[in-house]
């Protein structure tokens, strides 16, 4: 770099780098602020990426950096892989992609902390740095393997149910203690490589064990939490290399992930501790109560639903993950368009855990060109149901189950739900009478004003489109 910059400027360079880092932080914060509205969100993301670009460029100006070949190779390989993944991924697979990216962020931070130790083996790092370094490796590596397990579960590579075995909690706690012992050992013998390897190895195992016991239904919580951890890992790596840009950016991400984790837990009426350490969530055993006795259901066909909806004033669509699985988000938009042409007020009521990660359903509907002004979240839509003529429940189950309000014995009791039973008529699009993720009977299906329309979501919606057109 000497050839580009006059020697006299070098005295100012460290300050310049720090100021540029500050500018990058400001860009990150402004970028995140712009995410508060769909209209400005895209420019916000661009501001944040500009901040990242600035941060990387000024770092390369730093005089400490002398070898560029590995940097260039790494950046090229990473960019190609990242860009390919971003371009190719289907929107239904977004949770998988975010899980993998969380993991990569985590391992990168762990490696930065490790690299800082391997860089200065002749002169020991100060104790405080070693402590943070150990924690950084621990959090980063747990995030990495935990995210890979989350990815495998979401992708169906391993079964989604909680994988449990005896003394699992005890084992996890012992491993965590061993990792912390490794950090203590490192503090005592700062130049020894063994404690570093011990911390790394234990952390890798811990990440797997930590996520493997969490059920598929709780994945939105886990992804949010891993997101938070990837930020905290970056922040701690910043402590190790004394870099404010990393500390602040990592903390911002850590906070974002924690907020989302909290929202997801509340939406599922689960405590974070019970997601992490208890059983329920994906295993369909709890309170399945076979009390179906003499309750009867009313089945309808596409022509019935067409008449119901076409002559309604207001229709609310309640989509669930089943809609996405069936790739039916484009067909439901077609139904909505036809109804709107007939003067029907069509809205979408979206439960916070409708997809496999926070806000997932909104993205899927946006992909199908549903304008975001028609998307309403649970609080907004719940007061509207009693004024609604027809609710179309498509591929959703537990999030519309009145048991959450009426049956204190139910495992989902207390979970906030969409009050679709307040509407004049409800049509449930469903494959069969099978139970949802929580494995609980849904009283909604037996209500007098509920109609069941059986079949694959895409096929039934396509029939509905035809029937509405024929009216």
């Amino acid at each position, binding site marked *: 770099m000497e050839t580009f910059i006059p020697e006299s400027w070098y005295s100012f360079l460290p300050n310049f780098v720090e100021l540029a880092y500050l500018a990058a932080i400001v860009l990150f914060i402004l970028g995140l602020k712009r995410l508060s509205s769909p209209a400005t969100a895209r420019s916000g993301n661009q501001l944040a990426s500009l901040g990242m670009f600035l941060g990387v460029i000024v770092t390369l100006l730093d005089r400490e950096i002398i070898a560029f070949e590995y940097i260039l190779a790494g950046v090229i*390989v990473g960019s190609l892989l990242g860009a390919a993944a971003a371009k190719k991924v289907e929107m239904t697979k977004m949770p998988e992609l975010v899980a993998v990216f969380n993991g990569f962020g985590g391992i990168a931070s762990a490696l930065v902390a490790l690299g800082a130790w391997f860089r200065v083996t002749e002169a020991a790092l100060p104790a405080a740095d070693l402590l943070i370094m150990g924690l950084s490796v621990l959090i980063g590596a747990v995030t990495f393997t935990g995210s890979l397990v989350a990815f495998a579960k979401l992708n169906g590579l391993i079964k989604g149910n909680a994988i449990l075995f005896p003394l699992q909690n005890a084992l996890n706690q012992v491993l965590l203690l061993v990792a912390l012992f490794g950090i203590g050992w490192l503090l005592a013998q700062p130049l020894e490589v063994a404690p570093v390897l011990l911390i790394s190895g234990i952390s890798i195992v811990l990440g797997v064990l930590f996520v493997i016991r969490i059920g598929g239904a709780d994945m939105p919580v886990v992804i949010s939490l891993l997101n938070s951890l990837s930020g905290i890992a970056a922040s701690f790596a910043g402590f190790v290399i004394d870099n404010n840009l990393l500390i602040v950016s990592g903390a911002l991400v850590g906070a974002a992930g924690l907020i989302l984790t909290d929202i997801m837990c509340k939406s599922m009426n689960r405590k974070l501790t019970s997601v992490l350490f208890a059983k329920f969530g994906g295993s369909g055993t709890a309170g399945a109560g076979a009390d179906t006795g003499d309750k009867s259901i009313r089945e309808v066909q596409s022509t019935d639903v067409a008449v119901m909806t076409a002559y309604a004033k207001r229709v609310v669509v309640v989509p669930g993950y089943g809609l996405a699985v069936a790739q039916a988000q484009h067909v439901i938009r077609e139904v909505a368009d036809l109804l709107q042409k007939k003067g029907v007020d069509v809205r979408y009521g979206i439960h916070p855990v409708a997809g496999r990660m926070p806000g997932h359903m909104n993205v899927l509907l946006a992909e199908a060109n549903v304008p975001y002004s028609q998307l309403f979240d649970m609080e907004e839509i719940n007061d509207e149901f009693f004024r609604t003529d027809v609710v179309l429940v498509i591929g959703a189950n537990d999030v519309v189950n009145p048991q959450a309000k009426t049956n204190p014995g139910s495992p989902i009791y207390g979970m906030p739900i969409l009050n679709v039973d307040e509407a004049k008529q409800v049509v449930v699009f469903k494959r069969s009478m099978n139970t949802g993720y929580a494995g609980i009977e849904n009283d909604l299906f037996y209500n007098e004003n509920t109609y069941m329309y059986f079949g694959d979501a895409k096929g039934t919606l396509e029939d509905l489109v035809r029937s509405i057109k024929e009216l």
Partner: protein
Amino acid sequence: MESLIFNLFIFVLACFVGFEVISKVPTTLHTPLMSGANAISGITLVGALAIAGSGSGTTATIIGFLAIVFATINVVGGFMVTDRMLEMFKKKKEDEA
């Protein structure tokens, strides 16, 4: 130790800024928020550059190189996929078939 305490100040204050800014993000945008935030956590790339490029031994360079690859995937992929998602959020159905 002094720098640790100083860094801790920055960390805690940044957490509060994060909570303030992010609690205003609507549910609709939570997925792009997560993938965008995720891209930001790839900032660890800056640390990776310093480690891979400082010429301090083979082990550190290899570790740094791997960190660069992972962090760059995170940064480039994260920002690009977030942009792809946000592009789809439209007010009206103008460019519809």
